[in-house]
């Protein structure tokens, strides 16, 4: 093993040790008497010190040496761990980490002066109370044997020789040791450097020890795994091609083989993915330290709890969420959790709780960061957002509490009124959101005043191979990541023509009573039926102007839904995501590209980018805000009162609303379709005779039977109740709203239940049975019963 390799090995091992140190020290602070942890801490520092000694990293050695002396005291019960000592030890860990970083980069420890740190550590060495007399070396030796794992005597021996400081070997003579220690670094370093052979022996020993402890695992270079993953992607593509080719074959042997290949590839894929999976606990381990530091910095008491540490995520994703998570954790402690006094005053435990939770749900990983602090101050967020011009005062008035709290993700909204050393690190909440969304995740915050807030992230398991829906439009195929997919709607024939309505020029589809804005993929991409270069003309001819049927892919983007209208919905497939070149990234509607089973390239759509481009998010936001604001401003407590209402116009200016639940369909009939049966207008509708009621005639008490009073079609609201259908002829369909309202009783007008304020205008509420009764005093039920 060359020197370089030894150094590298040393670095890798030390980094791991340092991570454990952070953890151990925090644990130790909570439980200062835990000898096991103390021994573990001691061993870690000791190992670093020893190795740095023979590798001639003098500064590193001198720092760790004092730290070790301090730990030895603690271990021997001569000192008790205080917060001050923990802080000093943690800063020693930081110093060590920095030096290791320098060694990693430059090969040397770098120019640094750790005298202050060494002095602090040395000062702490002095016991505040009189040390109890401790028997000398014999006891010390015995202690070594007391340790849960036998101390590495072989490794330790040369180091003790090279650093024969009393303080370390026999902690029983504290007063002179303190003075000695001031200069501990230098002689020790020289000696350490001059004794490489012994040190090397020690290293071999330590390595042997390390191996025995971790026989079952090996360390693999990440780039190796990345390569493996790429090849795996290729194999998945090949598999897809083979399966596609053989599916039309009649050779049963070939079919069986290809099925087997399919199966094994899938298993192999899972296996390879698994090698890249890491428990989220790996990045959580540094949070206790982060929380401690931040809490100490702002005088708070915070306990951190973790659930679901073992939840696994792809390494690239773990890397990507590390910084955002850290930011949220720091924020929660800094701004979320109150000071102990404030907490006590609010009747809470003075110690705040930060809970990290991770769990799998629906093929995604959910991560929640919950604090039991004061919650977000929505008033402050609202004011700030208005003040910064991010939203108008009018908008803010219409927003719900939840929408307000989620404004914190907007760029430029720093809610921290007090700037501490924690905030203002250049990573705003908007960066958190951007980074999470970059990897296909979502983030959301919920807050309850006085009870705390929860940040919830939904993260995909992996990025490399994802399930996707393949659609085609204008002869090209596109992949839509399955995570964004909610449902598929297919409208055929008449449905396709009638089901898609226009609201202020924007196409919408009524999905279970809610209006779903529609985006036509071909229009958005500005592709027409023209076949792309070299594409088969058959594919192009499949697209022929207005399609007979409409295929709507219902997608979720940023908590909002929209429907993407495509020519064809093909299939779902596991696709391998390949990045696009820089030149193509300027357009944010492609998330990448993939290679299909036939070897052709297909673009992967970025659903969020597409929604933004099509501008459906803003509209929906406005719309939802209006709906919600309507509910709130009317102050109707009972949410069940908010029904979806169909608004229509009768006569010249009459506004009327009918409960959408009572409406079966909206139809249009040409005027010449009206026939008169008995004394009653009717149309043939779905093989039945449907009587028509002219709403304006009934309500305005006119009787206008002249059918030809205009060229345009009749707008008919088909009312269905227990099997009978009646067509209500109205003059114009206005809108569909979902609002809460209070009906003011009104008597005197037949067919009207009363009036209410809907969309800020006085609107009559239709009483359909009353209306029908008044229109046809003599009912002929046999005619309309099915």
């Amino acid at each position: 093993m060359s020197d370089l390799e030894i150094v590298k090995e040393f670095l890798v091992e030390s980094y791991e040790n340092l991570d454990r140190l952070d953890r151990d020290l925090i644990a130790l602070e909570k439980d200062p008497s835990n000898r096991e942890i103390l021994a573990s801490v001691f061993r870690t520092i000791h190992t670093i010190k020893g190795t740095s000694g023979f590798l001639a990293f003098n500064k590193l050695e001198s720092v760790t040496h004092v730290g070790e002396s301090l730990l030895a005291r603690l271990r021997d019960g001569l000192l008790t761990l205080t917060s001050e000592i923990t802080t000093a030890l943690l800063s020693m860990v930081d110093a060590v980490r920095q030096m290791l970083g320098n060694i990693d980069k430059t090969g040397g420890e770098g120019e640094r002066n750790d005298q202050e740190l060494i002095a602090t550590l040395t000062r702490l060495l002095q016991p505040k109370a009189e040390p109890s007399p401790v028997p000398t070396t014999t006891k010390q030796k015995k202690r070594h044997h007391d340790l849960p794992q036998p101390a590495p005597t072989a490794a330790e021996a040369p180091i003790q020789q090279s650093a024969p400081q009393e303080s370390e070997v026999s902690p029983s003579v504290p007063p002179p040791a303190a003075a000695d220690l001031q200069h501990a670094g230098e002689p020790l370093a020289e000696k350490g450097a001059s004794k490489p052979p012994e040190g090397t022996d020690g290293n071999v020993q330590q390595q042997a020890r390390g191996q025995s402890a971790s026989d079952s695992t090996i360390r693999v270079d990440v780039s190796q795994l990345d390569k493996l993953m790429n090849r795996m992607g290729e194999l998945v593509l090949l598999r897809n091609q083979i399966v596609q080719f053989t599916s039309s074959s009649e050779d049963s042997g070939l079919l069986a083989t290809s099925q087997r290949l399919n199966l094994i590839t899938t298993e192999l894929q899972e296996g390879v993915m698994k090698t890249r999976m890491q428990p989220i606990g790996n990045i959580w381990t540094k949070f206790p330290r982060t929380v401690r530091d931040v809490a100490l910095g702002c005088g708070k008491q915070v306990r951190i709890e973790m659930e679901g540490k073992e939840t696994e995520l792809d390494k690239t994703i773990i890397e990507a969420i590390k910084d955002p998570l850290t930011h949220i954790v720091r924020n929660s402690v800094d701004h979320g959790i109150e000071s102990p006094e404030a907490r006590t005053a609010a009747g809470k435990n003075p110690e705040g709780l930060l809970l990290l939770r991770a769990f799998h749900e629906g093929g995604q990983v959910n991560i929640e960061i919950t604090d039991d602090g004061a919650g977000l101050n929505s008033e402050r967020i609202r004011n700030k957002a208005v003040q910064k011009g991010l939203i108008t005062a009018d908008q803010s008035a219409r927003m719900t509490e939840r929408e307000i709290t989620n404004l914190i993700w907007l760029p430029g909204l720093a809610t921290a009124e007090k700037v501490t050393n924690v905030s203002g690190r250049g990573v705003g909440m908007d960066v958190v959101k951007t980074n999470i969304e970059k990897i296909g995740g979502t983030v959301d915050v919920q807050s309850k005043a006085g009870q705390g807030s929860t940040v919830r992230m939904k993260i995909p398991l992996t990025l490399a191979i994802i399930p996707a829906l393949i659609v085609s439009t204008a002869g090209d195929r596109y992949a839509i990541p399955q995570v964004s997919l909610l449902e598929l709607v297919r409208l055929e024939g008449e449905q396709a023509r009638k089901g898609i309505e226009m609201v202020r020029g924007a196409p919408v589809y009524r999905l279970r009573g809610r209006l779903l804005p529609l985006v036509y993929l071909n229009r958005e991409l500005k592709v027409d039926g023209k076949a792309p270069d070299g594409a088969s003309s058959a594919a192009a001819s499949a697209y022929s102007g207005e399609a007979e049927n409409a295929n709507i892919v219902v997608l979720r983007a940023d908590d909002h839904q929209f429907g993407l209208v495509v020519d064809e919905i093909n299939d779902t497939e596991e696709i391998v995501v390949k990045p696009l070149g820089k030149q193509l990234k300027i357009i944010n509607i492609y998330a990448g590209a993939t290679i299909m089973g036939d070897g052709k390239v297909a673009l992967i759509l970025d659903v969020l980018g597409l929604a933004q481009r099509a501008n459906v998010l803003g509209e929906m936001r406005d719309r939802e805000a209006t709906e919600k604001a309507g509910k709130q401003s009317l102050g109707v407590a009972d949410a069940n009162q908010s029904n979806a209402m169909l608004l229509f116009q009768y006569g010249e200016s009459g506004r009327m609303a009918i409960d959408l639940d009572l409406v079966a369909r909206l139809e249009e009939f040409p005027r010449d379709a009206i026939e008169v049966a008995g004394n009653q207008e009717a149309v043939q509708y779905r093989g039945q005779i449907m009587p028509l009621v002219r709403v304006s005639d009934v309500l305005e008490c006119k009787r206008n039977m002249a059918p030809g009073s205009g060229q345009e079609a009749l707008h008919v609201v088909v009312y269905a109740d227990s099997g009978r259908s009646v067509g209500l002829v109205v003059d114009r369909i206005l809108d569909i709203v979902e609002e809460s309202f209070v009906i003011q009783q009104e008597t005197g007008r037949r067919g009207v239940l009363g009036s209410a304020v809907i969309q800020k205008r006085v609107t009559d509420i239709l009483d359909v049975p009353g209306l029908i009764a008044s229109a046809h005093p003599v009912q002929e039920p046999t005619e309309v019963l099915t």
Partner: protein
Amino acid sequence: MTITQQFCTFFLGEQLFGIQVEQVQEVIQYQDMTRVPLVPEVIRGLINLRGQIVMAVDLRRRLQIEERTAGASMVNVVVRTQEGPVSLLVDSIGDVVEVDEKTAEAPPHTLEGEMRMLIAGVHKLDQGLMHVLNTEKACESLERTGA
């Protein structure tokens, strides 16, 4: 001693162009590609090069030379760039020629527009002038050109 350079040559119409052979990864036949909507039209589409997705740039459009007649054949010259391989669509491929550096001349001032930006120099060959293409420039900042 003369320093020679090898160039892979190709044609756009009658004009002869050359790319240093070191920059050429491979030359492949025209193949079907997937168009990318909404990008400048110099990007003809994406091709699958043995599992790697490569962008195909129409060099005629890039150099603002008139469009080829419909159905005319094209060849992919895959060049290495800092952003990975990019395919340049040319009309047809010529020989690999070895030229003396001394025959090189600065591009004539009469060159206009994009040509002027992208032609690094001109070599006088027996069969005519060979325009040396700056491939790195030809493959970058495409958003400025085309549609």
